[in-house]
């Protein structure tokens, strides 16, 4: 009996060895026949009007079957001025650097379509496509159809999307200075001096202030014109500037669009939709670089995120704004 067990065990080990010793010989993969294509989306984060949606469109056909003649991209909403397709095909070299080689004429964009016609005899190329998001696409969805045509008359197509375009707007690098260009309009996404602020009095939602007061920490501040005179600290507001707002201080919310730093964090429409500033004050003192504020205007028309890009001890700062129209 015991001997039988030993025999069975040996047999199993033998079978196991036979299995593991099977060697598969490497064979070069054979390319797909016909014209093939593929697309990846290179840009990340919310799709903002004025920003680019970037794609890399790859197309290839076996050398024996022909060459690529043209590539075309059609968007469901026409791109803004600045929409184009690269005339260079990119590959990544051994150092990880993208190298471009011209393969086509300059792209022609007409209406919703962008076309490039190849000038170099090529059977494989990767072209970048940059779709500049137009204002009219805000809150809508946009879809793209990529297609390539080969000299043998074959075509290949690839659909991408739909992508929802954010409703929010953005203004970058607004310079504010203490007691001068210190009146900020969220509606206009602009900074005014006292004279211009008086002309846009009903649209001024924020005042920038810098105070270096011994014994307290005041520093750089953003406040609604309607805040108490104590926090305005002697600043005389232009006639008619009296809007209120609700403000909440935030630290280290370094939105990538606004901060343009390495952090992959984005403020999106949904953040504004879910924002609740109930019970928040109408001022924020001691703001530092890379901090910010959430804000809602008194008429509840706008919600905004104001990011502080930089502050200077001489009483100036650089801010960037994302704004969401609620109503």
């Amino acid at each position, binding site marked *: 009996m015991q001997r039988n067990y030993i025999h069975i065990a040996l047999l199993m080990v033998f079978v196991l060895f036979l299995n593991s010793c099977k060697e598969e010989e490497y064979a070069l993969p054979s390319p797909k026949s016909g014209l093939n294509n593929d697309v990846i989306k290179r840009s990340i984060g919310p799709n903002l009007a004025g920003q680019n949606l970037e794609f890399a469109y790859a197309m290839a056909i076996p050398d024996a079957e022909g060459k690529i003649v043209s590539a075309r991209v059609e968007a469901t909403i026409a791109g803004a001025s600045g929409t184009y397709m690269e005339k260079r095909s990119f590959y990544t070299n051994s150092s990880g650097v993208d190298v471009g080689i011209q393969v086509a004429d300059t792209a022609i964009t007409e209406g919703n379509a962008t076309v490039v016609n190849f000038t170099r005899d090529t059977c494989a190329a990767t072209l970048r496509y940059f779709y500049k998001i137009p204002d009219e696409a805000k809150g809508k969805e946009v879809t793209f159809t990529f297609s390539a045509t080969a000299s043998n008359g074959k075509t290949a197509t690839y659909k991408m999307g739909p992508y929802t375009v954010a409703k929010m707007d953005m203004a970058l690098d607004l310079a504010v200075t203490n007691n001068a260009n210190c009146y900020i309009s969220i509606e206009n996404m602009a900074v005014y001096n006292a004279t211009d602020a008086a002309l846009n009095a009903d649209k001024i939602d924020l005042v920038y202030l810098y105070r270096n*007061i*011994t*014994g*307290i*920490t*005041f520093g750089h*501040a953003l406040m609604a014109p309607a805040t108490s005179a*104590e*926090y305005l600290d002697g600043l005389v507001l232009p006639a008619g500037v009296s809007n209120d707002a609700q403000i*909440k*201080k*935030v*630290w280290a919310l370094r939105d990538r669009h606004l901060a343009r730093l390495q952090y992959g964090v984005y403020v999106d429409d949904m953040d504004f939709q879910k924002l609740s500033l109930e*019970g*928040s*004050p109408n*001022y924020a*003192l*001691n703001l530092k670089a890379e*901090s910010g504020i959430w804000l809602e205007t008194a008429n509840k028309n706008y919600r905004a995120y104001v990011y502080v890009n930089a502050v200077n001890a001489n009483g100036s700062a650089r801010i960037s704004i994302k704004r969401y129209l609620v109503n």
Partner: protein
Amino acid sequence: MEDKLMKNKNLKYIAMKKFLKISFALILVLFTGTQCSKDFPVDGDGLLITERAECYVSNFELLGSDFQTVRTKNAVIDTTAQTVNVEVFYGTDLKNLYPQFSLVTDAKLDPKIIGKVDFSDLATPKLWTVISGNRKVKKDYTVYITVQPKP
């Protein structure tokens, strides 16, 4: 000859059986031994009720809406008077603050802090009760806030 072989086989079988019985008994004893550690009861919050009677606040932090400290300096904790005194920066939004208590081991706080706390009524300071690990000692701590004065 055959009888002798049979006898040997039986003896081996009996010895094996005995060995298994002893091993099983030994494992059972070891298993019972590990189960003998004392089990502490738990309270309504699922926290262990231990034998510790110490009951005090060891540290206090106060964060603003941006989750940064609003203290100008360390909080002063008086474990005899059962008070916490904190000075906050000028212009601190007192309605939206997040207090954080550090307590002695096994103690707990009542009421629980589950979000922001409104400290704006400075005339009526907030009060929390620290409950010791054995849940038999309770001490009320009052948190006094003062705002950095503007010169």
